[in-house]
């Protein structure tokens, strides 16, 4: 079988998985009545609030209050589409999402995450949140990976050395520390005590939106002039994430390399008296590349899901907050849109990996 066919087969399989994932999500939130229940609760709450607001209006009598409340409720039911069964709402939404026509955000709280007011498209909301997550979490993860890949091989040959022990202890320690907790400590120290980081991180939203509009307009000057501003916001969150993630990354990379170090062919190479660098590059890194690339790519893809609590600590409403809010307030268009985008990224990462596997490891072709 040619490489092209193998890759094509994988691609078709992944595309199917993507469609099924989105469809299943739609089915789950629709058929189980999840969205309907959440939306009904929201409608009831809004109707109660409306009735209470009416209490402040002068001279309205009871039947009039009832009439207004009823018509308000009907309006909300229509607006949220609850007058139609889920299948008529969710299934078309699944289809339109799959062809990148994301639906409208229904809930104010979801639009809130992006800083929008209704009406808003799910795609706009996602696109507003995605860069925030990328500049903070994805970049931090990337830096972590680079550092880990630089450090881990260096300690692979020095098992039990001081550096190795420090790395192991550091990994154990940071593995135990939640990112959001460290974030609180970092804000306390750098923002409030030392005053070198901003106290309010929400300003990053404005910087990013200025940058994105400059980017759209092709205004390179404005784009790069905002860059320094962006850095002033982003350095502390990135530092925080890097500190926490670096330990586990070094540790896992070290473990992957160690497994190979103990292989016979490495021992043979060492016994042959080959220089350490050559052994590392040719005999260890090459075979370790597949698993390392897997964790790198999937890890990077995973960052797009955002960190819910850490985002909240930094008041940095990214993808995590958006996902949480979309599920909590039962906003089908956003849930489907997010599922689609994140699955798509995962599927693409998987596809790239498949290609890399094929390229890197001849055994995979079979």
């Amino acid at each position: 079988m040619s490489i092209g066919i193998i890759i094509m087969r994988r691609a078709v399989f992944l595309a199917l998985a993507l469609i099924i994932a989105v469809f299943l999500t739609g089915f789950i939130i629709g058929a189980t009545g999840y969205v309907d229940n959440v939306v009904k609760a929201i409608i009831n709450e809004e109707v109660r609030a409306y009735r209470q607001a009416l209490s402040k209006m002068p001279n309205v009598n009871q039947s009039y209050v009832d009439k207004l409340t009823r018509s308000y409720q009907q309006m909300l039911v229509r607006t949220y589409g609850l007058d139609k069964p889920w299948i008529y709402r969710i299934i078309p939404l699944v289809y339109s999402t799959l062809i990148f026509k994301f639906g409208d955000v229904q809930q104010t709280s979801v639009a809130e995450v992006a800083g929008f007011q209704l009406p808003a498209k799910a795609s706009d909301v996602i696109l507003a949140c995605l860069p925030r997550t990328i500049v903070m979490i994805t970049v931090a993860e990337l830096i972590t990976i680079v550092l880990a890949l630089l450090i881990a091989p260096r300690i692979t040959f020095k098992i039990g050395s001081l550096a190795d022990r420090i790395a192991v202890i550091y990994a154990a320690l940071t593995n135990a520390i939640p990112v959001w907790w460290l974030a609180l400590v970092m804000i306390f120290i750098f923002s409030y005590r030392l005053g070198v980081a901003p106290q309010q991180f929400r300003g990053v939203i404005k910087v990013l939106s200025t940058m994105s509009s400059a980017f759209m307009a092709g205004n390179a000057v404005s784009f790069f002039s905002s860059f320094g501003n962006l850095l002033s916001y982003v350095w502390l969150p990135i530092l925080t994430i890097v500190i926490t993630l670096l330990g586990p990354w070094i540790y896992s990379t070290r473990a992957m390399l160690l497994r190979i170090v103990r292989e016979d062919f490495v021992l043979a190479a060492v016994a042959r008296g080959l220089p350490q660098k050559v052994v590392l590059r040719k005999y260890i890194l090459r075979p370790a590349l597949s698993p390392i690339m897997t964790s790198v790519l999937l890890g990077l893809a995973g960052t797009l899901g955002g960190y819910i609590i850490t985002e909240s600590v930094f008041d940095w409403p990214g993808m995590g907050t958006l996902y949480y809010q979309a599920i909590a307030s039962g906003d089908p268009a956003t849930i489907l849109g997010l599922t689609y985008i994140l699955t798509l990224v995962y599927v693409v990462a998987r596809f790239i990996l498949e290609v890399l596997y094929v390229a890197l490891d001849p055994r995979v072709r079979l």
Partner: protein
Amino acid sequence: MGIRRSILYAILLLAMITLSVLPIYLVAQEQKGGASNSITFISVSLDRVGEAFRAGSIDAYIYGLRPSQLDQFQGISNIRFISAPGGLVSLVLNPAPVKTVNLTGDWTKKSLDDIAKAIGYPKAVISQVYYDKDKGVTYVDLAADGSNINPFALKDVRYAMNYIIDRDFIVRNIYRGYGAPMVTFLSNYDPTYMLISDLVATFGITYNPGYARSLIEKALTAAGATLVSGKWYYAGKPIQIIFIIRTEDERRDIGDLVATELENLGFVVNKQYLTFAQALEIVYDTDPKELQWHIYTEGWGKGALEKYDSATPAQMCAPWYGYMPGWQTEGWWWYRNDTLDELTQKLYFGTFTSFEDYKQTYRNVTAMCMQESVRIWVATRMDIHVVRADAQGITEDLSVGLRSPFNLKALYIPGKPDITIGHLWVYTSRTIWNIYGGFTDVYSVDIERATYDPLTWRDPFNGEPIPIRVKYSVTTAGPNGTLSVPSDAIIWDASQGKWVNVAPGTTAKSVVKYDMSMFIGAKWHDGVNITWGDILAAWALWFDLVYNNSKASFETPISGPNKPFFDTIKGLRIVPENNTLEVYVDYWHFDPNYIADYAALTPINPAESLVLQNIVVFDMHKYAFTTDTGRAKKLPTLNLVLKNHASDLASLAQQLLAGSVFPSKYFATPQGTYMSLSEWKARLQAFINWVNQHGHAWISQGPYYLDTFDDQAQKAVIKAFRDPSYPFNPSYWVKGSASPPMLTVPATPTIVVSNATSFIVNIVPPTITAGGRTTVASGNIYVQYIIKDVQTGTVLDVGQARLLTSGATMLTYQITIPSDITKRMAPYNYYQILIYAFSEAVAVPAFTSITLQAQPSISQMIAGIVTGQVAPVQQQVSDILKRMQQMELELSNTSRQFTLLGQQLGQQLTGSLQQVVTLLQQQASATSDVAKLIGSVGQQLNTLAINMSAIQSTMQRSVSDLSNAVNKVSGDVIGVSTSVSDLKSSITELNNSVAMLNNYILALTALVVVLIILNIVLLIRVLKK
């Protein structure tokens, strides 16, 4: 010459400097507009407020903090906390039945016994009987049906819940003192509480689990439940209570506390700790009859301070309003109470006829609501705001604390003209700045209020409407009469789209005459003059929104709720000569300030802004005014602070300007036109300039103008509007702080059973301190007292104190507890006198309580002794009587003997004396000493005689007193008012007298012996010669 010239120059220079600086100084002193030069609002999350103060990045924080969030301020000294009621906490109980039996026809008039017989269940389990007229069916709800029970369907069990809540503990420990206990839907922090406080106190609700246990035991046993080794069982199963406890705030601790009490009472409590959405899903979104919950820890936001709060009773007690279990959801079981529905509607819709009627209705609602106890009230919790300690211009608004517009307008920090205020948010997806459908969140409202002056507002200390940027007079013929509206009054005709004269014969209940001098001639923030055109356009556009079908149907969320108000506006009349606007209105309230407040429509935005807004919404359908319409029609909601929305308005203004489009209909009345085309164009141009300059379209008329609004950076800047035409200096807004009245009882009264008791209560009237000056707040002060039995909690008496004297700094009241009340007291029992002083000026009442032991009356003492030991006392009394008689006899004998002795002595003495005189004459020198002696003896004898007669009369009086007393005692035991102690003391006195008498007699005898010896000596001497 040179020196002189130098001095002259120096003087001239000094004078020039002084003269040039002086005006600046004076202007600074009397500057118009806001107190600070600018205020920047930024967003600070709740957990970072302390750090933000520490870092000096904010000067005040106006989002309410909870007591538990105050720990972050430890170690920060230069701040102060200002608290105001932020919310209410209650427990809502699910009164749904476990079974409903249907009976044909109306059974509501029949007795419970009849119904019980008809349905075959005991009377004690019937929880609610409701007749559905449409279906002709009576629904009989049962709290227990033989296999299941809902204890909270039983009214007595619900009522008992009041006694298991330790509200003082909750306020003191859970709310760290930032709260007030509540036993009904209002608390001490509501001015309306004055109407019902005594009534509420009569319920005597305290933390008394023992009493709760007895109530519950009675009710549950009657319903068929059994108490086995401290646990309640029904149909062989333990009675389980599902308790939904919210976890986000102090309600978690409150829930735990109450759950423990319920467990102690013998219930199995299934605690479910849930967050907002999860809890609501169960409590409000399931049929109460499913009994998925029994108790829920509710939380409520606190509304504005309201002198006459007519909506809360409906909200918290009445089913019709939709806040009682069943929530008016079709197809679910509903808690019903027709009486509460009827009474609360009377309050809510203002169909009361007088203050007395209002008050009585309010009291009836309160009493019934407390008896029904579907909601058990726990506490009013305080929101805490933080401000730098050196901040000035603060009004301690009892309603909203630091968020009060009085504060935002007057707040400044000496030496820091630009201040920063933190809020939780500055902009959210619900933050809408437009006057028709926006301002539904606090973040927009708080900033907006600093930028405009309303016609009327609420007094920060008592919630009564007060004039702000207007003066008014109210004439009313209500509640039943009408005034005729003058024929030159105008009304907006939506069908023709113009102002017309009112129809002949139009009448209204009241008219409010607003003096608009502080608006007309002043300026909008963009420099345009405020004219009658603005006022007319504001009214016309509102009328059109409500009555013009195409507008009304487009924005039903606005037109619907506002129509009833505009229906009551019968006509407007402009009198430009004296800047008066007359509003004829079909509305009546016993407080004329409420009428003035009702009829007020403040011009907040200039006419051109309003017109532009209405065009983009109703003509262009490009925006909506409300988020509801926006969501339904997929339109953005018009938000004047957003740059792109403002730009749309500005480009529309540009189009109108270019096409000379002039909507003159809003400004032309049959009497005249109040806007010219040139003025209109100038206004549009000013509007465009404003948008270009500030990037938003919010133009108003208050002491601050909105300079910039940055939604993404969560930052808004307002700057002082220093226009000379602006009417107020910053000090106008400083209402200061109010001290509630102070109450002292200078002398603790003594209560003697059956005796009326009066005592004095001194009241220091409430004061208001502003700008370093303290003034006594005007308004009546009412002093009420309640007397309760400490042991049983029953209320013996409720009454008003009487004003005795009224001074400037002290008022003296007298409380008289009548004898028919003290008659009902038991001697040696403890009674509590609760005394409240309410002032009309400051809503916080003064309170004190005195606990006293009732003293028995003398008659009671004796009656007590008699009833206890009748025979011995009677014996004692008769013994005393006998002894008295004996003593009387002895006394008379003694006195007789004494008299006799005296006579004999006198005769002897006379004889002896004659002899002595003869002797003396014979032997003058020898006997002179003896003569003196004799003289003194004579004197002594005289004294003795006087004393003797005094003693005798005293004795006789005592004896007669005694005999009187004894007669009374023997005649009527209770009538022995001269007490036994009197008797005893009299006897002691008598004994003393007798003893004295004996002494005298002894002395006298000795004297006689001496005299006899003397006589013998004399005789011997005489004989010798």
